[in-house]
């Protein structure tokens, strides 16, 4: 059976989550692999939530927020950027492929971009294969 | 030793951190005994990739009994690896902290751990601890002992930031110096510990050294091992703890070699046995000739006895006086009597106390030039005399100052071959004499206590009284006796 990646998406409510809704409403087709979780602002995402998603069996994690300059809380997305950069550095050291984490800026009007991102990410993770904790029941 | 057949058959059961196995021959006579050390933590492995400057704080977690030794062996290895010679004030403070550690650690052994064997009259097991010592020496003396140990730890904390696991050692110096208030405190500590040392000498002369019980152990040829000895000496051939040249004497007491400490790793090799996690170092040039003493066997000893054997004298007055009595008693060095470790330790405790006193009032001790700039990272070896003997840390660093590889040779490991032999001697003798279980254990424990073995370094155990277990097998390989404490 072909490997179907399990992806978690942390989407900020003001931009990316709306973008995802738009993709849904306009019936853009994209793979069903991503489980979206809406957060107030990408700046609220604690990196340990991302790590936990992996520990719980995710194969990839998408973090998506407003475009630089557009964050509803001014600079939450810059902070996210730093967090994800630091996280990737640490994940690499842990032995987990940093490409399993992807950061994107998607606005409320970019339904298309959202669909495309999910499609690309799904394909990329398929390539990488199952995440390290995939079949461990916790 | 016969060939080892390896069978993978994991057996789990309750046992201590050190175990002795004894084998009887066809006639039920003891034939062999081995000491097993059942733990490994693997610091050499997980040091790899770490930032060099973290090593003093990582490696001291090898041992909470002598963290100061690991901390500064490590810091010295970094001084070498970064080609940064510390300023004089930093060196003096390090040495001051270091002597406080030697003082407190030797005190711990003399009064809490090994000493009770002799200080507590007809030592019952339950009484052979500090409480028993206080009961038998009186509360006043007991309080002095506890107080002196506390003073040693206070001095460590003033300079090192913590009583256990100091943190101030950095490549090329110390992260922080002392204030003039702290200097006053250290001076008063220095005076008190010298007083304590003087009283301790009198006490031990009366209660231990000159007693028949200790004397007969001290002079019993059965408890003598004519090995090589290794230790640091200063430029005047004095016993030295913090720094010096590495010197080795042969069993006849002749200088075998003397070299700069940077060569330390090249002098040794370590043998692996499949039945214990501890390795057995030996002198590379002489080679491994099984568990044997003598000129032709690379087995060597470290620690107080060894240091007094490699040096020609002590560095300070009171210690030198006692040293002369010691040398007279044995008609000169080398002293091969294993029980002489205790006496040598006492002499060293006195030197450490006197050094604290000297250094605390040294000019420039409150200076604030504490760190020399570091240069390109490379390789470094740090050698220091831990209370239990020569401790060697060797690192090689990459261009970024990360640890590529590290090697730590610790005193209890260095003594482990000799320790095994002493234990075997004691076990075999006591079993042959048909002693009771309790007596056998006592005998065996007394056989290893002189070394003050710290299996935390090799592995574990605070009191040198490892959770000892003793198994006796008959010639059929059946377990016929199991003694545990």
């Amino acid at each position: 059976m072909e490997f179907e990646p399990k992806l978690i998406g942390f989407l900020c409510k003001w931009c990316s989550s709306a973008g995802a809704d738009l993709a849904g409403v306009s019936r853009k087709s994209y793979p069903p692999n991503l489980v979206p979780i809406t957060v107030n602002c990408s700046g609220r995402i604690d990196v340990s939530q991302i790590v936990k998603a992996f520990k719980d069996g995710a194969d990839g994690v998408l973090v998506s927020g407003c475009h630089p300059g557009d964050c509803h809380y001014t600079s939450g997305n810059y902070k996210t950027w730093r967090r994800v950069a630091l996280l990737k550095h640490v994940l690499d050291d842990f032995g987990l492929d940093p490409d399993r984490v992807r950061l994107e800026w998607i606005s409320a009007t970019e339904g298309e971009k959202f669909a495309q991102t999910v499609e690309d990410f799904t394909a990329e993770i398929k390539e990488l294969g199952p995440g390290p904790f995939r079949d461990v029941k916790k | 030793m016969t060939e080892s057949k390896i069978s993978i058959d994991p057996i789990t059961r309750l046992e201590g951190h050190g175990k002795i196995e004894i084998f009887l021959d066809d006639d039920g006579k003891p034939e062999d005994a081995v000491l097993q050390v059942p733990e490994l933590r693997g610091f050499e492995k997980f040091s790899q990739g770490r930032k060099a400057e973290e090593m003093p704080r990582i490696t001291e977690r090898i041992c909470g009994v002598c963290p100061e030794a690991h901390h500064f062996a490590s810091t010295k290895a970094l001084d070498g690896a970064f080609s940064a010679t510390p300023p004089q004030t930093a060196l003096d403070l390090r040495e001051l902290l270091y002597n406080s550690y030697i003082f407190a650690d030797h005190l711990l052994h003399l009064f809490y751990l090994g000493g009770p064997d002799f200080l507590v009259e007809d030592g019952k097991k339950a009484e052979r601890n500090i409480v028993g010592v206080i009961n038998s020496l009186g509360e006043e003396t007991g309080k002095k002992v506890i107080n002196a140990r506390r003073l040693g730890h206070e001095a460590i904390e003033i300079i090192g930031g913590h009583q256990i696991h100091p943190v101030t050692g950095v490549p090329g110096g110390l992260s922080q110096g002392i204030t003039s208030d702290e200097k006053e405190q250290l001076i008063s500590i220095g005076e008190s510990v010298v007083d304590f040392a003087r009283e301790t000498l009198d006490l031990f002369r009366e209660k231990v050294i000159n007693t028949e019980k200790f004397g007969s152990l001290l002079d019993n040829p059965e408890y003598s091992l004519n090995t090589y000895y290794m230790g640091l000496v200063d430029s005047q051939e004095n016993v030295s703890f913090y720094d010096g040249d590495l010197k080795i004497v042969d069993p006849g007491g002749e200088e075998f070699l003397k070299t700069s400490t940077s060569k330390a790793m090249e002098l040794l090799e370590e043998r692996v046995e499949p039945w214990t996690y501890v390795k057995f170092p030996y002198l590379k040039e002489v080679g491994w000739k099984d568990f044997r003493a003598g000129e032709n066997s690379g087995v060597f000893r470290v620690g107080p006895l060894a240091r007094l054997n490699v040096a020609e004298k002590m560095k300070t007055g009171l210690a030198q006086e006692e040293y002369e009595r010691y040398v007279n008693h044995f008609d000169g060095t080398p002293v091969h009597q294993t029980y002489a470790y205790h006496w040598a330790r006492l002499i060293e405790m006195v030197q450490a106390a006197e050094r604290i006193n000297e250094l605390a009032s040294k000019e420039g001790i409150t200076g604030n030039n504490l760190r020399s700039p570091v240069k390109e990272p490379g390789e470094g070896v740090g050698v220091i005399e831990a209370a239990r003997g020569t401790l060697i840390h060797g690192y090689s660093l990459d261009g970024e100052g990360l640890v590529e590889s590290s090697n730590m040779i610790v005193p209890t490991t260095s003594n482990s071959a000799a320790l095994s032999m002493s234990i075997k001697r004691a076990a075999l003798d006591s079993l042959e004499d048909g002693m009771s279980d309790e007596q056998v254990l006592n005998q065996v424990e007394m056989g290893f206590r002189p070394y003050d073995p710290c299996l935390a370094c090799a592995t574990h155990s605070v009191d040198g009284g490892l959770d000892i277990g003793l198994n006796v097998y008959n010639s059929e390989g059946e377990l016929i006796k199991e003694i545990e404490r």
Partner: protein
Amino acid sequence: MSKNKKKIGAYWASSCGGCDVALLGLHERILELLDFAEIAFWPAATDFKYDDLKGYGNNELDVTFFNGGIRTTENAEIAELLREKSKLLVAYGSCAHQGGIPGLANMSGKNELFDTVYKEIPTTNNPDGIIPQESIKKDGLTLNLPGLQERVRSLDRVVDVDYTVPGCPPPPELTEDFLELLINGELPEKGSVIAGSKTVCEECSREWNKESIDAFHRPQEVDIDPDKCLLDQGIICMGPVTRSGCDSSCPEVNMPCKGCFGPPSKVEDQGMEMLNSLASVLQVGEEGQALEQEKELLSNLPDPIGTFYTFSLSNSIFGGKVSEGGEND
């Protein structure tokens, strides 16, 4: 008299012994302790047999101080036995609390550990590649050693823990606090960590401006200002994500905090929390430019695991190395 005395146990598993020394560090207090408690099991300081321990009834020990992490099969067995025999089981010190420094071994498997120690180290002369065995025949007889488990685990990952006294080792005042609470019957709710409730930063006397950092420095590379926050000077200090209770003793002597007290309440993963925290103080620039700075910053941040998880790797979310496509806990 001894009827009303509390029975106290202490045990060290895979540890350095420093925690036992810390208990001895109570100095005179240890004598006071003996007025209301008797030591019923403490291999490091008194002579008790494992058989004595096995002979105790369930919950017969009032409180047991357990130090050291769980490395060997034997450590795990004794942890279980002590749990059964103790009313209160206290994780004492960083190793029992969070795996401690020996937990860094979790970045390698046990065979790699063996290979390094017994084969690769240059002073080791081992032409036959001998590795200690859990069971081996010597002269026809079988000798056993406890096996090493694949990973170091903190005590709470093996058995239920009632209280934690953190630190490497715990400062004597905290141990005294715990004992006082115990004697007075005032212990807080189960699961509590007996230490401060803030972070090390909040106790630290350095001036902390939460300045933004544009470069990380290693302590030996710079002159450290003794009055300013270390993090503000670009030196990684774990103070913001470490529980208070040590009087910020490392920053007080000009050394960064390494996090030995573990994270404050509610923080599960100390290292990850540090990333969150650092991300707030890193300099934020324009989009394109920031990317470049970011790379430069990170290139100056070697060994992130050793840096952010010095004491807590073992009970971090991952617990140690993960391997892509391999077996993971």
